[in-house]
């Protein structure tokens, strides 16, 4: 596309930071050795991989030895869930939430069809997890609980400290998909008794094709990928050195700018949100705005449909996403918004704007201007809520 892009779909993927690209380049054609090789040319690479490992560990306050590089967030989730269950085959009960990303949701669904008892914890109208329900569902058979750190669609952050402590007190393993949280909010694994945690590079300005599985020391997890002895035998496959180096740099940048971003990006998000909810005919925010990622807003425009909104936004170069049925490729709208009990009149017209440090106040004004125009236009076509338009 040649036109200017106002990119607000950062929970889908992010721009690779220029600093990250720069850090990666030498590792394609100059420093291309195999980190496992015995000779000097490969051996020098290992140092760079170790440095990157230390930077990733620093972002989540972990020990570098607890960082395993994978190919993506989905691999990390699969490796964590299957690896923990393989290590304790006698326990056959697993718990997750109703609002997980498909990378966890579908693994649990598969396990449910293959002999596991699966419990799904509900969320309330604001997308908050029901801790009492979790307390009730945990039993002596529970092998694993997997609950995301922050939701990709609404940005709602779960109380991971409390959840992790509760799960550990009952003797089960705890995994959290922190793909959306890592780099956006503080993660301190010295304080939180999380056993396993997944990170995806391309959600924090590293490229696609690199992920991390944090595995706490002493937690037994059967390797998902078998083969060579890379990653201390915990994840076979030649190290993806340029991407590992890039991810290290991206984590370093995220760490460095986190507090500024939490303030600045959140300010832009709040600007967008308040302008849209105040000026639109009928727009409401989905999810708990108290405990939320600084970059995400999920707004429902009543009586209009998400795919139409996205297509019209796209016409003027605005990139966002929607929980409508028509954008998912399935016939069902967002499982996250439905789990929250958001009515159909609002689910189909939900739009997620997810920002990054590369957005500006001008971007927000541009979106507001066009979004209001688009809402008006689609409401004019819609057979529903005619009286409200006339009253507006």
């Amino acid at each position: 596309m040649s036109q200017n892009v106002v990119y607000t779909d950062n929970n889908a993927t992010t721009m690779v930071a220029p600093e990250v690209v720069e850090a990666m380049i030498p590792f394609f054609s100059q420093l291309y050795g195999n980190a496992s090789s015995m000779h000097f040319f490969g051996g020098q690479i290992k140092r760079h991989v170790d440095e990157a490992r230390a930077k990733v560990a620093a972002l989540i306050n972990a020990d570098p030895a607890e960082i395993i590089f994978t190919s993506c967030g989905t691999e990390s989730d699969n490796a964590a869930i299957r690896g923990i269950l393989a290590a304790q085959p006698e326990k056959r009960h697993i718990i997750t939430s109703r609002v997980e990303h498909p990378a966890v949701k579908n693994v649990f669904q598969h396990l449910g069809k293959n002999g596991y008892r699966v419990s799904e914890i509900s969320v309330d109208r604001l997308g908050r997890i029901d801790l009492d329900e979790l307390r009730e569902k945990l039993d002596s058979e529970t092998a694993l609980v997997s609950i995301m750190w922050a939701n990709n669609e609404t940005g709602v952050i779960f109380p991971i400290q409390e959840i992790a402590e509760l799960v550990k007190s009952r003797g089960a393993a705890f995994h959290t998909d922190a793909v959306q949280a890592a780099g956006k909010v503080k993660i301190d694994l010295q304080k939180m008794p999380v056993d396993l945690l997944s990170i995806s590079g391309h959600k924090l300005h590293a490229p696609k094709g690199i992920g991390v599985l944090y595995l706490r020391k002493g937690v037994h997890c059967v390797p998902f990928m078998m083969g060579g002895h890379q990653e201390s035998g915990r994840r076979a496959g030649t190290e993806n050195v340029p991407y590992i180096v890039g991810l290290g740099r991206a984590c370093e940048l995220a760490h460095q700018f986190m507090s500024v971003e939490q303030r600045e990006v959140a300010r832009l998000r709040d600007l967008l949100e308040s302008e849209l909810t105040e000026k639109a005919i009928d727009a409401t925010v989905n999810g708990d705005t108290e405990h939320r990622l600084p970059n995400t807003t999920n707004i429902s425009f009543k009586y209009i449909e998400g795919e139409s909104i996205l297509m019209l936004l796209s016409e003027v170069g605005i990139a966002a996403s929607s929980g409508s049925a028509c954008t998912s490729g399935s016939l069902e709208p967002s499982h996250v918004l439905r789990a929250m009990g958001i009515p159909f009149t609002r689910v189909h017209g939900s739009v997620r704007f997810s920002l990054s440090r590369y957005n500006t106040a001008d971007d927000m004004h541009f979106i507001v201007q066009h979004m209001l125009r688009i809402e008006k236009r689609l409401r004019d076509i819609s057979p529903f809520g005619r009286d409200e338009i006339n009253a507006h």
Partner: protein
Amino acid sequence: MWDYNEKVKEHFLNPRNVGEIKNADAVGEAGSLACGDQLKLMLKVDDKGVITDAKFQTFGCGSAIASASALTELIIGKSMDDVAKITNKDIVDYLGGLPVEKMHCSVMGHEALEAAVSNYYGESPETLEAKKKHVVCECFGVTDQEIISVVRDNKLRTVEDVTHYTKAGGGCMSCHDKIRALIEKVGGEDQKTAPPKPEAKKLTNLQKVKLIEETFEKEIRPMLRADGGDIELIDIEGSRVTVSLRGMCSSCTSASITLKKYVEPKLREFVSDDITVEEVKP
């Protein structure tokens, strides 16, 4: 993003005949808010029974808006008798095609038109209670009559086709057996009414296997292999061919589209025109 053609996009961006007709001579509605789309069609009909004006309001995605726009263009100036013959396929053809997953948008157009026609002739709309008795798909509220009519008009052969066209079976999937029975029912009618095709080849299973394998080798594998995939013949039962996709194809999300849009047409062309292809997971 959906791969809409230019004409669909153009009708979405500049829909024709949006709005309301006060004192319309016929009104028809289809779809529902819960399903994510709804269409209201309003007609002005002169005393000779010709549609002089048509307007619509739509809640829905890009192709739903484009389908409604196309529908109004198709019917203005035509007589009520003529428009009664219009099917969803005419809407699709007018638009130059829709993605297969979006066929239900054209069906919604057809249903709204049907409803407007019966409204014009003063037929009382089916009561909700009566309609409920015939609902096949509870998730999307699709009735047996709706399924039979799209199966007949579009020569549909699989449950998946019916889901693409009507949404029926796309939710909890518990109605798949009922849909299959309706497809077979329509298929049976076709055999009774359609004259026997003179060139229809009577193949033995062995000949069929050989022809299918040849078609795979010559026509299909070269394309699949280019994407790192492969196909294997699993079973043949009458005209139903079961295959398994291998390699990259086995995990590809568009595998079912490949089967319907590429493999099935090739087998119909080279082996027998009544073949349906189904996939079994390895």
